């Protein structure tokens, strides 16, 4: 195996994972998978098979146990994605308030199709309601909620991200 195919979970993350495990009965390792995958994804943007292998190794679990979790939950990305994830909720309450126009606007503005990425952005059509329906239409950018969206608001949010660079 080539070196670059191996991944070492940073020691800081290992410590955090071990601390997380203290919440559960002795010997239970699986309950740390979701948390650990979040940590790994934050570090690497998306989860590759070498990450799954490394985590299985660390927790002394079968690879399939880790892979099953990584592929079941929608927040885990298994393919390369852009730096910032933008999820526009298009469930009922948001649809009634114009979420589809917001999504289409972002498609045009960022010049990427829904469900795809540029280097900078990953644009997601979020089919799950994100529990901010009274602030519809809404979206999340990297876990942050933005509610009562208008095109002007979207412009400002994107401008702020660009300025942060």
């Amino acid at each position: 195996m080539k070196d670059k195919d191996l991944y070492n979970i940073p020691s800081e993350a290992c410590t955090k994972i071990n601390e997380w495990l203290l919440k559960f009965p002795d010997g239970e390792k699986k309950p740390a998978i979701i948390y650990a995958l979040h940590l790994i994804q934050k570090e690497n943007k998306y989860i590759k098979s070498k990450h799954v292998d490394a985590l299985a190794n660390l927790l002394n679990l079968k690879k399939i146990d880790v892979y099953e979790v990584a592929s079941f939950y929608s927040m885990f990305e298994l393919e390369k994605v852009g730096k910032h994830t933008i999820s526009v909720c298009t469930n009922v309450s948001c649809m009634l308030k114009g979420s589809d126009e917001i999504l289409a606007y972002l498609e045009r503005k960022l010049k990427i199709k829904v469900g795809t990425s540029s280097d900078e952005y990953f644009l997601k059509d979020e089919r799950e309601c994100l529990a901010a329906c009274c602030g519809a239409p809404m979206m999340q950018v990297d876990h942050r909620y933005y509610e009562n969206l208008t095109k002007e608001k979207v412009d400002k949010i994107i401008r702020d991200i660009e300025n942060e660079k």
Partner: protein
Amino acid sequence: MKNNIRINELCFSTLSSNNPNSLETYLSQGGYSTWKKIVNDFTDKQEIIDLVVKSGLRGRGGAGFSTGKKWSFINLESDEIKYLVCNADESEPGTCKDRDILRYNPHAVIEGMLIASYAIGANVSYCYLRGEFMGEVYKNFKQALNEAYSNNFVGNNILGSEINIELHDLIGAGAYIVGEETAMLESIEGKKGFPRYKPPFPAIKGLFNSPTIINNVETLASIPKIISNGPIWFNSIGTKDSPGFKCFSVSGHVNKPGNYEVPLGTPFKDLLELAGGVKNNKKIKAVIPGGSSVPVLPGNIIMNINMDYESIANAGSLLGSGAVIIMDENTNMVKVLHRIARFYYSESCGQCTPCREGTGWMYKIIDKLLSGKGSLKDIETLESLPNMIASSTICAFGDAAAMPVESFIKYYKNEFLNYIKNED
């Protein structure tokens, strides 16, 4: 009329402060006094459970099952390890009350979890937050939890007593089905969220095979005041079968969408007025009164009913999670159902065939109708599908996916027929 409505007195009481989520605010409103008293008096567990039974509190997660009764399924005599789980996965479409309770009154959730844990004899309890809450919601909850630990409301030898209760935050990663209680247990155990067969019920065999009680955020946040003010205070509000306050998330075509905590039994039209009425002075067409999993009701029906479990059930729908989605006269009901069906299709966990296949069929047929390629036969198939899915699956997701379809066709069949090209 609306001036007389009592609003935000229970789970949202801290909203009257500028600093709603702080410990000071919670304490200034009498927070943790119930817990301190229980710890100090070493109150009999059964006594607490009896109070909750008497209050008539019904679970706010959707099913409306008596909370006290659920707790009493735990065998207090047994020395098995027991768990309490707070369901903070809030993901029923239209529902956004738990997020605000967690953000603005996290200490009430924590105190409720402590009291519930004590009453059922659990030394460990978990609050499972949906993954998307990783930002502000988690931060506020975690901060409150740290405060509760540093004040020794939680932990070992709580407030000098012999009581030990650990309380942990957990985080999910995106999956509607994990809101179902047994799927949540699987998820906490670190597996994919496949619901379990019942029986055995979680109160007998739940998390890590131990007796477990799962309650919704709003249910637990209601507990401290129910105990301190007494069951009579609680059930003097609302109706006989629906006592107390309930948070309603009013969304859609209204002027002031928002979470409103009002007495159960409040007339729908008063709730609508609180939410500023229908936007742009339009007429109301339809309302989904309890989240996307419940049957839709036409405006003229719901305008005359009260927001309590039995009135909504009598009208043919369910109060569910309290998510009230308002649709004005211009709403295209086929498009709304299309959106709902798309959701269930993409969120079915795939474990049971009728649900996995049925949700796909329903979505594809509605999609076909919308694109103008549908036929009368498709509508007939659509009418027959809900029956084939409901009650034939491990969990209630199947019913949740089926109920809206039946009701949309029942009340708005013409709109579906309009999508069929006249066949020569």
